[in-house]
Structure formats: C-alpha cells, structure tokens
C-alpha cells in the first residue's frame, strides 16, 4: 500500500497517514512508524531525477569514495538531499548487487556499472536536461 502510494504520488504525504490508519484499522503511530522505518519511503517529493550512488564496501574498494565526493561537489549538496533547482536528488544506496562491475549507480531505475568520473559527469548532465 505504501509502495503504491509512493509510486502514484512520488512520496507519502503526512496527511495520508490518518487515512491509511483508518483503512487498515491500526493507529496513526503505527503507520508513521512503518513509513519512517524504511529508507525508501519519502516524506517530501524528490527532484525530477533520482541518482543513487552505491556506497557499500565493494564499490568503495573500486573507487566509489572519490566519485561520491565528486557528485556532491558538482551538485553542491550532500548525499540524501535534492539540488536547489529541484533537478536531482542524490542518494546513497547500500548495494545494488552489481559488485562485480563496481562502482555502480542507478539513475531513475536505470542501472549503471563501471562508473568513472566521465560517466558520472554524463549522468549528472542528463539530470540537467
């Protein structure tokens, strides 16, 4: 149900919590607890694009740290936030299961492996279109 709401609206508005609670006959606190427990559920709309960079060990070993720093510097925002112009939300993800083609990323659901600075710049350029 929460997945469906997020798929429809892009995030789960706080105003939806009492409605969900009512429909499922549970307390609002329980609904709030579930939404805030999981990293995937958003409380506010994301940017027009979502760029996830894998920050787990296999990607760290393959040079993921400087790439993450580069993306943050280029966009001027830290991980987990949206660029001021609303173009892109930059997020850390802990493993996309692409560890043998590390470092990896996901742009709006599209997977990218063997990421390097040039490829990352290409992805960032895509988000500005």
């Amino acid at each position, binding site marked *: *149900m*929460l*997945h469906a709401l997020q798929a429809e609206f892009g995030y789960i508005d706080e105003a939806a919590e009492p409605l969900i609670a009512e429909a499922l006959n549970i307390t609002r606190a*329980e609904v709030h*607890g*579930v939404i805030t*427990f*999981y*990293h*995937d*559920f958003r409380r506010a709309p994301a940017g027009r694009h979502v760029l996830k960079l894998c920050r*787990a*060990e*296999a*990607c*760290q*070993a*393959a*040079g993921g740290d400087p790439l993450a720093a580069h993306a943050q510097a280029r966009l001027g925002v830290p991980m987990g936030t949206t660029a001021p112009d609303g173009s892109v939300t930059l997020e850390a*993800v*802990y*493993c*996309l*299961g*692409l*560890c*043998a*083609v*590390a470092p*990896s990323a*996901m742009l709006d*659901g599209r*997977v*990218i*492996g*063997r990421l390097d600075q040039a490829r990352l710049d290409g992805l960032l350029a895509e988000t500005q279109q």
Partner: protein
Amino acid sequence: MTLRLTIPIDAAALAVGAGQVASAISAAAARQKVAIEIVRTGSRGLYWLEPMIEVETPAGRVAYGPVAPHDAESLVAALRVDGGHKLRLGLTEEIPWLKRQTRLTFARCGIVDPRSLADYRAHDGGKGLERALSLGADALVEQVVQSGLRGRGGAGFPTGIKWRTVAQTTAEQKYIVCNADEGDSGTFADRMIMEGDPFVLIEGMAIAGIATGATKGYVYIRSEYPHAVAAMEAAILAARKGGLLGNRIGGSSFAFDMEVRVGAGAYVCGEETSLLDSLEGKRGQVRAKPPLPAHHGLFGRPTVINNVLSFASVPIILDKGAGFYRDFGMGRSRGTMPIQLAGNVKHGGLFETAFGVTLGELVDTIGAGTNSGRPVRAVQVGGPLGAYFPRALFDTPFDYEAFTARDGLIGHGGIVVFDDTVDMARQARFALEFCAIESCGKCTPCRIGSARGVEVVDRIIKNDNRAANIEVLTDLCNTMKFGSLCALGGFTPYPVMSALTHFPEDFGAQPRLQAAE
C-alpha cells in the same frame, strides 16, 4: 540459416551496456541482411567479460566479449563467415574460469531463457519436483537432511532439520518464505538466480511446500533489485500457467502458490525475523528467539524461511540424490557454494565450486588479483558483517567452520577485494556507521553501541588517548557481540576487530618491526 545468439538481460550486464549491444546487433544484422534470433538469458557470471554474447554453433556456444555497441557491425560480418573476431573467447564451456567450476545450483544460469518454462524443462528443470512427488514428504525431507545442505544465507543452519521441524509442527496454515533480501555488499548470487533461472527457485519452494505441508509461499525481494522483481513476477505467472504452481502442482494432489513481496530499503530485513515482521506490513524489527520461525513464524504460523540459494539447490539434490550433492565439499560443509568475487578484483563474478578451495586461490588465481594492478591488502568475506582477512590468512579453506575458527564468516559467499590504498581504520569506522544507520533499534548494544563505536574510532584516528580508546572499542565490541539480538549488532564487531587485529598500523600502532626493538 538463422543465427541464434544469446545476450544477457542480467542487471549487471545491462549496467555495462548489454541492452545497447543487443539493439546494435539487431540493427547490424538487418543492415547486413543476416537472419538472427536473439535470446535474452541470465549471465554466466564472468562479469569482466560482460556484455558477453554467445552464438550457437554445431560444436556448442561460442562466446564473444566484452562487446561494445560499436563492435556490432564487425561481429555480425564475422559471423557471416567463420566467426573469427578479436573478441572471440572460444567455446563458452571451455573458458577455463567457467570450466573449473562445479555448477550445480547455477547449472542453467546464463544458458536458458528465464522467461520460458519450456526451456527450463528442456534443461532438466522440474525433475527435482517429479522425484519429490514420487518420494513423498517424509522421504524427501530425509533426502535434504542427508545432502548436508546448510542455509546459504549465512547462518549455515542445516536446511533439512529446519524443514523437518516445520513438517512435524501441526497447524492449519504453514508458510514457505524465501529470503531474497540480498543486502550484503559483494553478493549478487540471489539476484543472478532470480534473473537468470527463476523457475529453479519456484521449484525449490514448491518442494519445500510438499515437504512441510505449506501451501503458500512468499519471496521477499529487496527494492534495490527491480529487474529481479520483474523476472520473478513473470516466472510465477508462467509457472501457474504451466502447472508448476497452483492447486495440483505437477499433476499431484498438492497445492502450492506464491507471490513476490518487495522490501523498502532496510538492510536489517535480511535478518529472518525482521523479514517476517516486514512481510506482515510492520517495521522490520528483529524478534527475540525462541520461538523459532519454524514454530511461530509468518502471522504466527509455522514457517520455513530459507535463502534463495538454499531453495535453488534443492531441485538438483532431489534429482541427483542426496549422496551426489554430499560428495562435494569438506568437513561439515557439504556440496557447492556459489562464491562471488567483487570489489577491486580483475576477474570478478560468480564462481560456484565445492567447499574447501582456499581464500588465496580464490583471490589470486581465480580473481587474478586486483583490477587496479596494485597488491591485494585485505579481503572482506561475508558482507558488511564479515571479517577483513590479510594475506597471512589466505590459506583458510572456504568452509563454515574454518572461517569461524579464524574469527570470520563465509556468510552469503561474497568476497570483496581491496588493494594497498585501503585505510582499515576507515573501514572499521564504516562498519560501525553502517550498523548505526541500519540498526532496527530494538536492542541497546546494536542501537547505541554502533553510534558510540563510531565516536571511539574517530578518537583513535585522531590519536586522542589512543591506547585507552582501543581498549574501550574492544570492550564495546564484546558487548555488541554477546548482547545483541541478531547478527547485525552481533557480527559488526567482526569487521571492526579483524581490522584492528590484522592491521594495527592503520590505527596508529608502530610498525611491528620497530615495536619489537
């Protein structure tokens, strides 16, 4: 004559351009007026060669890779004549990296069309279920017990014993749950099976249903795996149509059906009891054990919960017999393990082999060292909760007990390779930071210990009262290890303490030679 090509739709192959390669080859074939048929398969697991395409020839499939879209024209032109091309790797089955493996669980992965139940059956799929039906529930559980199969998710608990416990528990409703929340960095075997041979997982779960009297199954897949979710959903529909699932599976009187449930980005949900809570629609918080899920699992009912690879190994065990499977391996680790080589490694991928191969062989010979060309300094085995091993421990055989004896774990079989630029104090800090982010918050050692641990490591790195803080860290790790409810808090000390023990110089210790003087 129509040329038959296979090109992976595995997520990691797509991530390096397999989709563009497939389109480019179609276009090139159209331009050159060559009739081709492209079948999209899973990956063979030789990821440094992806996108790897294969062409059917009378002698067998011939591989080419890594193929870029701009190679399409010359490749199609070569295929019109003798197939000679600079990217030609020879017969796929003869590639040494693949040839020296023992592929039991992954027998079909990369070969069959994951969307075709007919193709699955043409490659021996379904034989395990047939045998299971002829044996009956009790004898079939005995086969799984005899095979020595242990939980491939990491805990290594004997699968057959778990099944027997559920079979012997009476209840109106029982469940089969597959843990496909493969969150460990450096692991991707579950994803490969779901994307490359999903019917083997369905067959394994259906067999578990027959064995225990469960009629309903769930596959809990992490949201980071959209391709696996789609592949499993398509396979379940096809399996229902083809009689592998439904009211009369395989024409028998047994009923079994299943569905996919998608996670929401919580690492801790890979822990079996928090996964069950998450499946019930709650926060994924760890439950205290006992009661065991086998007695009191999903919705309070007896539940078999196993990893993807455990279920996927069952069909071949039944097809070939418990003895066949048990004859591979060493000690109490029987059968084969799909090992995943990842990180800074030259030849990364899926290497399934009998237990007993040494860590050094895996990293140096099979993995061929680092991709950066620098010396290997450390490897982390078993995901973010696994220990860091230095070269000095490379003689450790891949075996549950051997790793435990050296304060490590094989976990889900992932090996992440690091070169000599790694800072082990930072890796230790990351392990604690990750635990703090992902802790479900139920028990104090994990929730508070991880946050305090990050602060202590920071003080050690800053050389603030270093010796005393190392003592605090050691003590804290002990508390977490013995006081946490589940493996997240309980095993986070493995990467931390192994880094501290094997790489003290990164924590400010004097190099050992000087210290000895």
